[in-house]
């Protein structure tokens, strides 16, 4: 082969050659040229590779763009992002001095933040603590702001306690003395009460998303959006609300709107270089796509953020993404791939450091086995999840996993184990007052005899699951 100089074949001709789109004469001429020309031969190889990639990428890209035409209703508070609020009171101190005060207050706020988070982790402590916290002090405002933000990151540990924390903060703001709301004071200039209110509504909405109270979540997100807009329209805060609202819409059957809001938030986070938030927005898009039944695209969206969650040790997000990937893969019939995904996740998340995360992953894996009707493996995995949930204090989740374990043993045909686990379960619910004892008795009856009524066991398991979730507030 030698190098012909002119005329080389153009890219379109070579693509048509690859596609078999040339007529006979054109094809023969092209083939002769390619054989003799090193340059065109090389370009043809590149065109071939491009063709292979485009076959994969183009259908996905086109599906992606068909969601770009979605519009929100005219009266939807999230239709467009609010304008930045223009009004800030005239500063009594020079801007440079203000920056110094803000920086110093922010740096000294760590202890306040920790104290609030410690109190929020125990029942009944956070409300009195917040009642005594003076919000005339910029240090306390930063401390509370960071605690509310961190609360969102730790939400998987206890969504119910998180909600109580957010609500306690909102009660505190309702009782703010006028001196704290005076727009001319230093603290209000540094961290406006509206920003704190917005953050508390955002956290409350997040917690409601986790517990499944979506109507309440809607109200909180709308209020958060409004508060952040009035506080100055910080784009990142507004995008954070959109990202959580996206999830709420997806969970309530408005997946297309979910995609729109997730993408809007993602664009802002990308612009600001916030890698972790970009990954979260991608996961939110994944949730929306999976709710639309577009599992293939959803898996891709979830995987987009997984490496970032892992590298930044954002384990709640990581676990949620892994479990979502697993669910989508099972629906796509790719069970082995789902198992590998969970196995990889279990290796990543060390048990010592994050038993709750491992519990959620084990639970997700168990659900995969259960869906695939591999009941023995499901039962073993549910039992491991139960133990880890107990260790992490997530009792409602432990009880629900236990119910699944009982049903798995029953479906496996191991009635002795099913009954034995039911006895342990009964003791657990009796201690927690989580369930009417008659339901456990009805499960026991369904498990009795030579032909246990498995459909009845499943029905009762669902009923019991709903009651436990409602009474104890299981994390999703």
């Amino acid at each position: 082969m030698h190098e012909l100089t002119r005329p080389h074949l153009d890219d379109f001709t070579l693509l048509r050659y690859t596609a078999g789109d040339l007529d006979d004469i054109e094809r023969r001429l092209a083939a002769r040229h390619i054989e003799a020309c090193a340059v065109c031969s090389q370009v043809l190889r590149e065109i071939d590779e491009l063709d292979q990639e485009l076959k994969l990428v183009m259908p996905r890209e086109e599906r992606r763009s068909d969601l770009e035409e979605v519009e929100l209703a005219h009266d939807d508070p999230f239709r467009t992002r609010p304008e930045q609020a223009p009004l800030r009171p005239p500063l009594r101190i020079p801007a440079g001095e203000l920056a110094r005060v803000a920086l110093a207050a922010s740096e000294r706020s760590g202890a306040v933040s920790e104290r609030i988070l410690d109190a929020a982790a125990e029942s009944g402590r956070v409300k009195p603590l917040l009642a005594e916290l003076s919000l005339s002090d910029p240090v306390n405002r930063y401390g509370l702001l960071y605690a509310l933000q961190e609360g969102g990151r730790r939400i998987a540990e206890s969504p119910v306690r998180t909600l109580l924390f957010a609500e306690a903060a909102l009660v505190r703001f309702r009782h703010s003395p006028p001196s704290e709301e005076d727009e001319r004071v230093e603290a209000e200039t540094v961290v406006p009460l509206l920003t704190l209110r917005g953050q508390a509504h955002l956290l409350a909405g997040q917690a409601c998303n986790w517990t499944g109270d979506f109507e309440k979540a809607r109200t909180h997100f709308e209020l958060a959006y409004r508060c952040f807009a009035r506080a100055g329209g910080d784009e990142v805060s507004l995008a954070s609300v959109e990202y959580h609202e996206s999830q709420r819409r997806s969970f309530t059957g408005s997946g297309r709107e979910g995609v729109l809001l997730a993408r809007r938030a993602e664009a802002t986070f990308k612009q600001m270089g916030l890698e972790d938030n970009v990954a979260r927005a991608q996961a939110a898009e994944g949730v929306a796509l999976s709710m639309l039944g577009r599992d293939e695209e959803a898996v891709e969206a979830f995987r987009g953020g997984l490496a970032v969650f892992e590298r930044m040790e954002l384990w709640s997000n990581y676990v949620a993404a892994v479990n979502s990937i697993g669910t989508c893969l099972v629906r796509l019939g790719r069970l082995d791939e789902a198992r590998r995904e969970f196995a990889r996740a279990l290796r990543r998340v060390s048990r010592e450091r994050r038993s709750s995360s491992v519990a959620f992953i084990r639970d997700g894996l168990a659900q995969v086995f259960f869906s695939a009707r591999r009941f023995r493996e499901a039962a073993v995995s549910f039992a491991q999840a139960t133990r880890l949930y107990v260790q992490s204090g997530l009792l409602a989740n432990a009880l629900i996993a236990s119910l699944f374990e009982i049903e798995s043993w029953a479906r496996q045909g191991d009635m002795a184990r099913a009954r034995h686990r039911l006895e342990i379960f009964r003791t657990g619910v009796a201690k927690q007052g989580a369930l009417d004892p008659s339901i456990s008795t009805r499960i026991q009856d369904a498990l009795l005899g030579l032909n246990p009524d498995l459909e009845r066991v499943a029905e009762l398991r669902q009923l019991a699951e709903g009651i436990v979730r409602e009474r104890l507030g299981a994390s999703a």
Partner: protein
Amino acid sequence: MHRQVALRQALGEISTSCRRLLAAYYVEGQSLREAAEIFTLTYTNVSKTINRCLRRLRQCMN
């Protein structure tokens, strides 16, 4: 995976008409010759536009 990300980005930067041609071929199953008919230009001009676009996509793969 990197190539696909780069390719996706490049697809966002090419002309709408070229993107429509690729969609007609790769998604809707039309032949390239049929797909090229969406352009109301002479074949030479169509070729020029598509060549520019394919070159851009090919470069992003390297």
